[in-house]
C-alpha cells in the first residue's frame, strides 16, 4: 500500500506587482518562516529535505540552485532545485515522502518578476531556435494562435473568454494577497486592445512578485503535527511536445493526461461530482476554459457556457479560481502553480476569508508552464 502524505504548513510572501523593499531571498525567508511556524517545525531540526523550483533565466543568475539553501533553513541539508511549475516541485517533494526515506520535506517557489527587466526576451529565448525563433515574434503570438483554434473548434465565444477575466479579477478583489484584483465588466475586457488576435490585452495575466512555501509530512507524522492535514490524494504531470508543428492546438493534451494520472491515483471517476472546486491555470483567459475541458470538469465546448451561466463563480456549482487565479493574483512565474495549490489548501482549511467557499472537502490545482511549453502538473487535495 502506498504511503500517505499531507500538507501540514503553508506560508507566503506577497503577492504584489512590485516589491522594491524585499530581495527574493527575503521573500523566500518570509514565506518559509511563516510555513514553518504554521507547521510547528524547525527547519534545521525537523525538515529532512528541501525542494525549490526556479529557472535560471527568470532569476537572472545561472546555476541558481546554489543560491537557494540559506534563506529557507536548508544550509548543510539535502536541497535540490528543479525547473518547472511549482506543482512539479510539490510532486517532487511528495515523492520523497513516498520513498519512505523522508518524513518531513518542504517545497518552495517564488517570483521576482519585477526584477527581470527583459522578461519578454526570456520568453523569446525559450522558443525553438532554428525554425521558430528566427521569426522574431513576441511569444504571446502562440497564445493568440491557440485561442483562435480553440474558439474555432469548440464554438466558444470571445465574450465567454472575457467573462473569465471579469470573474477572476473580481475574485481577486476579495483576496487581500492578490496583486491584480479589480472590478471590471465584460465591455471593458472586450474593448481592450486586441493585441494577438483574438487575444485581448486584459485577457493576458500580469506578473506579480511573491514566494510560496509548503511543508509536507508523511501520514502519521502529519497527524501528529496538525489536526487539519490537507491530504495529497493524487498527482499527475505530462509534457506533450515542444514542437509548435506537431502539438495539439485545440485540447491541451498535457492537461488531460496530467488529470487522468492524478484522478486515477485519487480514485476519482467523475471529477465534476467528486471535486468541489478548482484552481487552474488562467495565464490567458481562454486557458481557464480550455483547461477545464481538458481536466474533464466538463465536455469540450461546455466551459464557456459554464462561466457565462455563473457556474464557476464563488457561489456557483463548481467555483474555478476563487483566489482570482493568475489573472487576479498575478502570474508568479515558476510559483504560479504552487500559488494555485496554496489557495486550495486555504479553502480546504476554511482560511480563505471573504472568498471562502462553503463546505468544500476536495479541490484540484493545475499549473501550466506557459508559452511556448506544453508542460502541466495537477494535484488533488482533500481534507
Amino acid at each position, binding site marked *: 500500500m502506498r504511503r500517505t502524505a499531507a500538507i501540514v504548513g503553508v506560508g507566503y510572501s506577497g503577492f504584489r506587482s512590485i516589491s522594491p*523593499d524585499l530581495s527574493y531571498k527575503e521573500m523566500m525567508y518570509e514565506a518559509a*518562516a511563516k510555513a514553518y511556524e504554521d507547521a510547528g517545525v524547525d527547519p534545521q531540526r525537523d525538515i529532512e529535505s528541501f525542494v525549490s523550483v526556479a529557472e535560471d533565466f527568470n532569476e537572472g543568475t545561472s546555476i541558481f540552485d546554489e543560491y537557494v539553501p540559506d534563506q529557507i533553513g536548508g544550509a548543510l541539508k539535502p536541497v535540490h532545485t528543479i525547473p518547472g511549475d511549482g506543482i512539479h516541485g510539490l510532486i517532487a517533494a511528495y515523492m520523497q515522502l513516498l520513498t519512505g526515506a523522508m518524513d518531513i520535506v518542504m517545497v518552495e517557489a517564488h517570483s521576482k518578476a519585477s526584477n527581470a527587466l527583459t522578461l519578454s526576451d526570456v520568453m523569446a529565448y525559450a522558443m525553438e531556435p532554428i525554425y521558430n525563433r*528566427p521569426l522574431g*515574434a513576441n511569444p504571446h503570438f502562440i497564445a493568440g494562435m491557440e485561442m*483562435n483554434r480553440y474558439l474555432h473548434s469548440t464554438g466558444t465565444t470571445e465574450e465567454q473568454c472575457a467573462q473569465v477575466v471579469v470573474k477572476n479579477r473580481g475574485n481577486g478583489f476579495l483576496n487581500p494577497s492578490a496583486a491584480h484584483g479589480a472590478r471590471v465588466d465584460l465591455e471593458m475586457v472586450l474593448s481592450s486592445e486586441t493585441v494577438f488576435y483574438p487575444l485581448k490585452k486584459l485577457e493576458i495575466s500580469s506578473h506579480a512578485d511573491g514566494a510560496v512555501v509548503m511543508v509536507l509530512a508523511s501520514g502519521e507524522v502529519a497527524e501528529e503535527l496538525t489536526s487539519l492535514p490537507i491530504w495529497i490524494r493524487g498527482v499527475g504531470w505530462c509534457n506533450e511536445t515542444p514542437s509548435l*508543428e506537431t502539438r495539439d492546438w485545440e485540447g491541451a493534451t498535457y492537461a488531460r493526461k496530467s488529470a487522468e494520472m492524478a484522478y486515477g491515483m485519487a480514485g476519482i471517476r467523475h471529477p465534476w461530482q467528486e471535486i468541489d472546486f478548482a484552481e487552474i491555470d488562467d495565464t490567458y483567459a481562454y486557458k481557464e476554459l480550455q483547461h477545464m475541458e481538458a481536466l474533464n470538469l466538463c465536455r469540450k465546448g461546455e466551459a464557456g457556457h459554464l462561466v457565462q451561466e455563473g457556474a464557476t463563480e464563488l457561489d456557483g456549482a463548481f467555483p474555478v479560481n476563487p483566489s482570482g487565479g493568475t489573472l487576479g493574483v498575478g502570474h508568479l512565474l515558476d510559483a504560479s502553480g504552487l500559488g494555485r495549490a496554496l489557495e486550495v489548501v486555504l479553502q480546504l482549511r476554511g482560511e480563505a476569508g471573504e472568498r471562502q467557499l462553503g463546505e468544500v472537502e476536495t479541490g484540484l490545482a493545475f499549473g501550466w508552464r506557459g508559452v511556448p511549453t506544453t508542460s502541466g502538473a495537477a494535484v488533488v487535495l482533500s481534507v
Partner: protein
Amino acid sequence: MSLIERLGTFGDAKVWYDNIPLESEYTVGIAGERFLRAIKDRGVILGTVCPACDLTYVPPSMYCERCFTQLDEWVELPAKGTVYTFTIVTRSLDGQALDEPEILAFVKLPGAHGGLVHRLTTAKPEDVEIGMEVEVVFKPQKEREGSILDIKGFKPT
C-alpha cells in the same frame, strides 16, 4: 518569526543593475541540414515519415516523437497548405506597438502531420480565415542562406 524590520522609504530601496550578453550557435543537425538545404538549393519542403504511426514530420525529425523509432524515409511535400490557425501580432518582442501588424499562421501541409509556423505575407488581416489555402513564398534563390527565413512566408492561392 519573520522579518522584523523593513524599509520605510522609497529612497532606501536600492537595486544593482547588471546584464549579461548571451550568444549561441545552434547545430541544426542531420535532419535540419537536409531540410534547410532542400529549401535553399531546390525550393522544396522535405519531411520524414514514421510508417508505424503513419505520421509525416515537417520540419523533419530523425526520430518519431510518438514511438521513438528512428526515421529514414524522406518525402517531398507540396509547398502549399491550409491555415490551421493564425493570429495578428501587434506587438514587438519588447511589447512596443508594431507599425504594421504581422499575420502569423500555422500551416498544415497536405499529407503531413506537421507543418510550418510562418508569416502570411500578402494577405490582409480581415481576409484571413482558418481553412484558407496558401502556398509557400520562397526568397529568390540567390538570396537564400540555408535558414527558415529562406521562406518569406505564405500567400493565399
